[in-house]
Every structure is written in structure tokens, then in C-alpha cells.
């Protein structure tokens, strides 16, 4: 019983991390209609940036913020200098993000070397906490809280603000959105920055649990894909539900059938794509 509870808890924590990864991915995919192949690399880069900030002696949450800002800046530059050029050609944009992924990966290797790096949790979040019968690490609770805060903030943004309404319009139908005067390209820059910032922060927040190493980018990217395909492209609710489902499948899968963990992760994704290409929540595809 205890093992179940611990795994459940870990699943939720991992789901939180996945949400930080997938929410940005799904917004970018929904609005710009491209899977950002550099998203995993941005996660990794965020983690590396956080590592350097902490090494410089600054507190953990400053590192988180720094990673967010750095990745937002990178996102802005990439979107305006590279992607904006090929606005009409989505395939070219996908390929460009792939090229970017390789550049980020190698640059990271250059700056931070090939060894796996650790970021320790902040002192005040170290150690376990007793919740009734359960003993859970404080940090994972904090991670869940952060993800929940991000989820609420995003929901408020997308559902309650004018900006969010514009984003939703752009996701639904960019042509009509433009015709209504919505500057879809400016929105794209914003969404790309936001998505990159989220994933960069996610990288730092996740580092105490998964550590930072070359190859992390292509380990995380498929997970973003799975969550978003399952949940539906462009849907935050879908990213939320998808993160939870995959968080559980991944965690329990690792515990029970480590050999087949990859298969059980990708099989649902493949099945959903094959049967219902728009995902569980998404709209019928363009």
C-alpha cells in the first residue's frame, strides 16, 4: 500500500514537470501550427543556465527566474530572426527548430561539458515531510505546487484575458483571427517566448529530480509530444490531463515493466494519432 502511495505521489510530481514541458509546447503548436523540435533542448538549456546561476552562489528560485528570462529572450530572437522569415512555410519552420535543437545541444556540450550535473534542492525544501502515514520529499511537493501555480496562471491568461482570447482565436482559425485585426505574428512571438520561458523554468525545477546531461533534450522532447498528442494540440486542459496520464504511466511503468517503459509510453500516442489524429481534446486538424 505504501509503495502505491509513494508511486502515486511521484507520478503527480512528474506530471507537474510534464505540464511545464507540455503546456508551452501545446500553445506553440496550437498557435503556430508547428511542433517545436527545440523544446527539449530549451528544457535542457534552462537547466544548465540554472546550474550556472546556482554555482554563482545565487538562490534556487533566482535561478528558476533567470532560466525563464534567458529562454524567453532566446525564444524572442529565434522567433523574430529565424521563424518569422518562413511564416507561410510550416515545414521549413519545423526543420529550422530542429537545426536549432542541434545547435543548442552542441553549444551546451561546449559550455557545460559532457558530465552529468546535479542541482541540489534549496535548503529549505530539502528532506521529507510526514503526511499521515506517508513520508514524501518536500521538494516534490514544491514542484507540484509550482506546476499548479503555472497551470492556474496559464488558465487565467488564456481563459480570462483579452490576450488569451486572441490566442484562442489564433489557435482556432488564424485566417479569421487576422481578418479580425488580431496580429497573429506578434502573438506568435509572445507565445513562443512564453512557451520557452515555461520550459526553461521547468528545466531548473526538474533538475533536482532528473539531473542534467547531454541527451536530456531528446529524452524530454518525445514526452512533450506524447502529452500533447494525447491531450490535443493547442489545448491547455488537454496538456493538463495528458501530463497526469503520462506522469502515471511513466512512473508506474518504470517501476513495473522497466524494459517496456518506452513501448507503453509511445503506444498510446501512436494509437491516438492513428485513430484520432487531433488528440483527445483537440479540434479536428487542419
Amino acid at each position, binding site marked *: 500500500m505504501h509503495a502505491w502511495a509513494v508511486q502515486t505521489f511521484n507520478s503527480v510530481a512528474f506530471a507537474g514537470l510534464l505540464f511545464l514541458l507540455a503546456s508551452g509546447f501545446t500553445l506553440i503548436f496550437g498557435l503556430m501550427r508547428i511542433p517545436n523540435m527545440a523544446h527539449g533542448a530549451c528544457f535542457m538549456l534552462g537547466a544548465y543556465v540554472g546550474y550556472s546561476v546556482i554555482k554563482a552562489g545565487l538562490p534556487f528560485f533566482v535561478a528558476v527566474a533567470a532560466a525563464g528570462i534567458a529562454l524567453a529572450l532566446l525564444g524572442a530572437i529565434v522567433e523574430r530572426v529565424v521563424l518569422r522569415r*518562413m511564416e507561410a512555410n*510550416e515545414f521549413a519552420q519545423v526543420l*529550422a527548430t530542429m*537545426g536549432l535543437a542541434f545547435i543548442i545541444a*552542441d553549444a551546451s556540450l561546449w559550455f557545460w561539458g559532457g558530465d552529468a550535473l546535479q542541482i541540489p534542492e534549496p535548503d529549505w525544501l530539502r528532506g521529507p515531510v510526514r503526511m499521515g502515514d506517508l513520508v514524501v520529499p518536500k521538494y516534490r511537493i514544491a514542484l507540484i505546487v509550482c506546476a499548479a501555480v503555472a497551470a492556474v496562471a496559464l488558465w487565467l491568461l488564456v481563459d480570462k484575458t483579452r490576450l488569451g482570447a486572441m490566442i484562442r482565436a489564433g489557435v482556432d482559425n488564424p485566417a479569421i483571427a487576422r481578418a479580425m485585426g488580431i496580429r497573429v505574428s506578434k502573438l506568435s512571438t509572445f507565445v513562443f517566448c512564453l512557451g520557452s520561458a515555461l520550459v526553461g523554468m521547468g528545466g531548473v525545477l526538474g533538475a533536482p529530480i532528473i539531473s542534467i546531461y547531454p541527451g536530456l533534450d531528446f529524452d524530454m522532447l*518525445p514526452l512533450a*509530444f506524447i502529452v500533447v498528442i494525447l491531450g490535443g494540440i493547442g489545448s491547455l486542459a488537454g496538456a493538463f490531463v495528458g501530463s497526469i496520464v503520462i506522469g502515471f504511466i511513466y512512473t508506474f511503468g518504470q517501476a513495473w515493466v522497466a524494459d*517496456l517503459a*518506452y513501448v507503453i509510453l*509511445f503506444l498510446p500516442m501512436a494509437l491516438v494519432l492513428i485513430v484520432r489524429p487531433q488528440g483527445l481534446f483537440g479540434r479536428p486538424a487542419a
Partner: protein
Amino acid sequence: MKAVLIGTALAALVPTLLGSSFHINLATQVLIAAIFASSYNVLAGWGGLVSFGHAAFFGAAGYGAALLVLKAGFGHLAAAMLGLAFATVLACIIGALALRATGISFLMITLALGQILWGLSYRWVSLTGGDNGLTGLKRPALFGLSLDGAAAYYYFTLGIALVAFLSIRRFAGSSLGASLRGTRDQPRRMSALGFNVWLVRWVAFVYAGFWAGVAGLLFLYYHRFIGPHSLSIAESAEVLLMVILGGAGTLTGPIVGAAIIVLVRNLISAYVEHWPMLLGVLFLLVIMFVPEGIVPGIASRLRALRASGHKAPAEAPPHT
């Protein structure tokens, strides 16, 4: 035809021109990559079907043959044929699943299915050796001649490469090839002309998977090793890079792209530590400024230079 003969003659002279084993081996690697890239070109260049999982067939053939030889004691020819058959059957299945969608959904299904295969090779350690892969393979002797030497294996690879390139060129110029390009350019119109668009694409997918398998087998016997990396996203991304770089939808583009990437990886890496970054930047520059690829890019600039002052040529560019 002349170009083919000259190219073949030059290629045949490579071992004598280059001399050292290291360089001859490099040439062999270029040929293997060129076959892999040409196979991908059938799918992505002429079919317009950009897949992120083509390495699945490359690796599957290699793993199939290696497992049969190392674990089941099969002879090399039988193992190779069965490995190739395995890759082709896999292409039939994955193609049938992935072609339920097009565009970006197709891309993602191929990525997902490719990852499943990668995951199996990585985790099923008892069968595949996991991250360590399968080692200990020996090259067979062909009609009594050993293939262990660099030059010998180069000629073997060259022979197969010629068959591959000529086949693919024939395919491109054939009715089926024209049908495939039609489905890329105007799928709805093609249906209205009586073509079974899905079936044309599926056949192309399987054909591309077949030749990827051939490249995988050559790779296996070249390195005497196969590992999960051969099935990875990185490998699929690399072959996509080769085709885009050199020029999708042309005959020589994939070969040029393959040569550039293999040579950069092996030669430049001696001087420039961060060649993947270089490759990434090169790729971005090509996508941004010469999106049709290097070979068509150079060809059209040459044409423009030659035709400067005259009107643009009115005939169609040859379907190279």
C-alpha cells in the same frame, strides 16, 4: 548516362587515389549514407512525406541480420536477406499506420513508432544488448574474396550503391515515380484523375524502407556492430538533414548532402571541435536562404548566370 559513367569511373578509382585505409573507409561511409539519404529522398523529396522515423528501417535490417547471425547461427546471406525482409515488412506495417495521416500528424506518428522501436532496442537488453548493441560480427567472404580490407569492402559497397542509385533513378523516371510526385503536388487532383493516392504513397514508403534497410545492412557489416543509435531520432534527423541540405527531390542532392555531413563529421571534427553546431548553423542557413537545397540552389544560380540578360527559360527544368 555520360554523367553516370564518369561518376562510376571516378568512384572506382577512389581507393587508388586515396591510398590510406582511413580515407577509403570514409568513402565507404559516404556511400552508405548516400544510399540511406537517397532512400529517404524517395519518401520526403518525391513523395512529400517528411518522416521522422526513417532510421527504423535502417536499424531494423541491421539488428535483424545481426541477431540471426550472432544468436541463431544463420549464414550471412540468409541473415542479410531475412534482415532486409524484416525491415521491408516493418515498412509495410508502419507505412499503413502512419499514412492514415499526412503532414505534421504523419511526421509525429513516424516519430512515435520509430521511438517504440528504439525503446525496444535500448531496453530489451537480453535480446539486443541494450546500449552496448550487438558486436562480434565478422564480414563474410564474397565468392572466396575477403571483405575485411578497406578497399575490398569499398568496392562491395560501391557495387550495391550503383544498383541502388540506378534503381532509384529508374523509379523516379517511371510512371510510378511520376504518380508519386503528382500525389505530392496535388493529392486531390490525383484522386480526381483516378489514382489511389494512399496506395501510391504506401508503395513509395515500403520502397524507401527497403533501400534504407539495404543501407543498414551495409552499415552493419562495415562497423561489424549495431546499436540503438542507428534507430534513434538523431539518426532520422540526420538523414533528413542530408536530403534537405543537398536538395530534396533531386537525384544527386541526397548524395551531396550525405557526403557533406559524413565528411564534416569525420574530417572537420579533427579541426573544429563543435562540428554539430556547425552543421546545425549550416542547416539553418540553408533553410533560411537556400530552402530548395544546395544542388538545386547552385544549379539555379548557374542557370541565372548563364541566362543573365535573357528571359527566364520557358521549358521545365529536367526532372533530375
